[in-house]
């Protein structure tokens, strides 16, 4: 038998912060507080923020750090119960009916056979309610804003009571609720009724110090000089009126792209060649490319030269 004892939850906000740090997630103390609350009061954590600020990553990191299974439900328009919760295996049911009829079984018998566990296909939400060795799983409901309102309403029962009702079987209830992380990119507002059942956290772009720390951990091998320049450049871009500001994911991708090209220090040419990794809209690229990039780079270099070096 495997060890049935679940891995312990962090005991305090400091522990939560340390736990996220150990799993290479550089979190704000505010985020650690929200995570701590969600873990201890067994409520879903609702994360909202721009694309690429590390919302999905939090769920992955929690699953790794707590050694829990990660169950992911990617939302899309038209997501329904059949693909999110459960579905009956119709083909096998049909065969079963034919066989039972050939054996001349009674109607009630057939019904109780074909609506049994054997023919139930479990989708992510139902899987998350099942007891797991090693503790309740982490359930990631990703990009909830992509679904429609009816599905959101369906989630209300699941998220407040951690149970689902299957008409043919009855109500299935989780013995111990899963750790639920919900993310939204805010392409539409999620209804207040759902948010009310969750702890809310707005994931913002990181400040320069935290972004530098993230680069140190996520883009290993990047030189200190390059990392500082990259962070300075991206931080400046975020103060501009761009159509889509670069997220942390873009910062990491860009640094890796620069490393691939053996760039040790940013130059206007290197920026122009790789700007497509950082900015994803042609208008934004056209605006930054060339003289604007050179101007920003000069500012960044001046800033770094003026700042006292860290020990």
């Amino acid at each position, binding site marked *: 038998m495997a060890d049935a004892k679940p891995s312990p939850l962090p005991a305090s906000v400091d522990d939560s912060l340390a736990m996220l740090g150990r799993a290479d997630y550089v979190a704000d103390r505010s985020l650690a507080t929200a995570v701590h609350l969600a873990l201890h009061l067994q409520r879903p954590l609702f994360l909202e923020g721009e694309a690429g600020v590390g919302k999905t990553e939090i769920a992955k990191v929690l699953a790794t750090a707590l050694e829990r299974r990660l169950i992911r439900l990617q939302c899309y328009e038209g997501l329904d119960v059949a693909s999110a919760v459960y579905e009956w295996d119709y083909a096998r049911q049909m065969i079963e009916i034919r066989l039972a009829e050939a054996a001349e079984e009674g109607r009630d018998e057939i019904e109780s056979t074909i609506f049994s566990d054997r023919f139930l296909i479990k989708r992510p939400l139902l899987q998350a309610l099942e007891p797991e060795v090693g503790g309740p799983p982490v359930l990631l409901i990703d990009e909830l804003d992509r679904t429609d309102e009816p599905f959101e309403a369906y989630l209300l029962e699941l998220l407040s009571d951690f149970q689902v009702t299957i008409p043919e079987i009855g109500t299935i209830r989780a013995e111990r609720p899963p750790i639920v992380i919900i993310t939204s990119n805010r392409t539409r507002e999620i209804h207040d009724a759902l948010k009310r059942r969750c702890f*809310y956290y707005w994931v913002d772009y990181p400040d320069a110090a935290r972004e530098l720390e993230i680069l140190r951990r996520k883009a290993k091998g990047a030189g200190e000089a390059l990392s500082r320049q990259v962070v300075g450049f991206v931080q400046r871009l975020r103060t501009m009126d761009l159509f889509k500001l670069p997220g942390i994911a873009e910062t990491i991708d860009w640094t890796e792209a620069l490393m691939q090209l053996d760039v040790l220090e940013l130059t206007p040419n290197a920026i122009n060649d790789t700007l497509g990794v950082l900015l994803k809209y042609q208008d934004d690229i056209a605006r930054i490319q060339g003289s604007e990039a050179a101007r920003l780079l000069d500012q960044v270099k001046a800033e770094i030269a003026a700042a006292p070096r860290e020990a």
Partner: protein
Amino acid sequence: MNATASAASDGDGRLLANLMHFGRALRAAGLPVGPGKVIDAVAAVRAVGITDRRDFYWTLHAVFVNRPDQRLIFDQAFHVFWRNPELLKKMLSLVLPQLNIDAPPEPGSEMARRLAEALNPNPETRESAETEIEFDAAMTFSDREQLRGMDFEKMSLDELARAKAAIARMRLPIEDVPTRRYGRDPRGARADMRATMRAALRSGGLIELKRKSPRRRPPPLVVLCDISGSMSRYSRVFLHFMHSITNDRDRVFTFVFGTRLTNITRYLRYRDVDLALDRVAEAVADWSGGTRIGHCLGEFNRLWSRRVLGQGAVVLLITDGLDRDAGTGLAHEMDRLHRSCRQLIWLNPLLRYEGFEPRSLGMKAMLPHVDEFRPVHNLESLETLIDVISAAAHRHTAAAQAQASYGMREE
């Protein structure tokens, strides 16, 4: 267990009372805080412990805040309240009487006016609409100067009935789009296995195949309405139109613009049309001023398009195309808007006087980027407006026709 727990049991009652007062203060400031939230807050504070002011802040933040725009109000309330609870109460008591006196009787008095009108057809003298202050609106917009006010004539009972009837018969060029959800349909293209299985169990014997097809629903609608000086005579009609359609279907978002862009969706959700219009009149700062179409569309593209155009929205742009900036940057923003939505309909209330030249630079910049161009010549009522929108679609040739009829060509 630790120091916090024992300290909490000692001062538990006072903390509880303070959290309750804090919750009430937030509610008065416009956050949706009910008793349930206060209970949650107590549980949350106990789970984290009160050792660190910052942790305390973020604990309450996780419970009380639901939307990014509430963060500022929460932040201010937190710092004022937890430094000195009395101060915040005093501040709110200055505001509360106004809220209590002005806001609640308003719908009732409107009803009474309409009721009186129904009983007595003689028009009664109208009192000037008293300004009312909504607390959170005041907080959001206090730093914005009131450029020009607006006072709308109240809607008569007859107008109200006709508006409802007109909206009911409105048909957009794109009416319903298929969703990815299915509904039962005997002639559907797909087999509905679940229904088939149920039917099979009921009847036994031969299994009859049930069918399904995609359900259809109207796409989201985004209305962008120009309220500048040249359009001011139509403002009332357009606002009535936007109010009726907001309350007629779901997923309608409404914006007005002159020199700046204002989202008025929330105000138009008030069922009572006169109340809704009063709120809009207050919230919008640039009535009957100039127009900066390019600038406002740019703002829409940057701040709102991703949030409201996400699910294949139809955009209804209402403007006469007279642009103070002479079309600078307009073509670019129109192009972006056009490419981010399912369909872009331009409704243009043309000026009626003789010799009107529809060749403004704004129009030239906009026409190539619309799917449907609908000019209105005699816009007097909501019904005319709706007839124009519902007219049979010209499909993709609309822009080309419009260009030909005005003798415009792209270079």
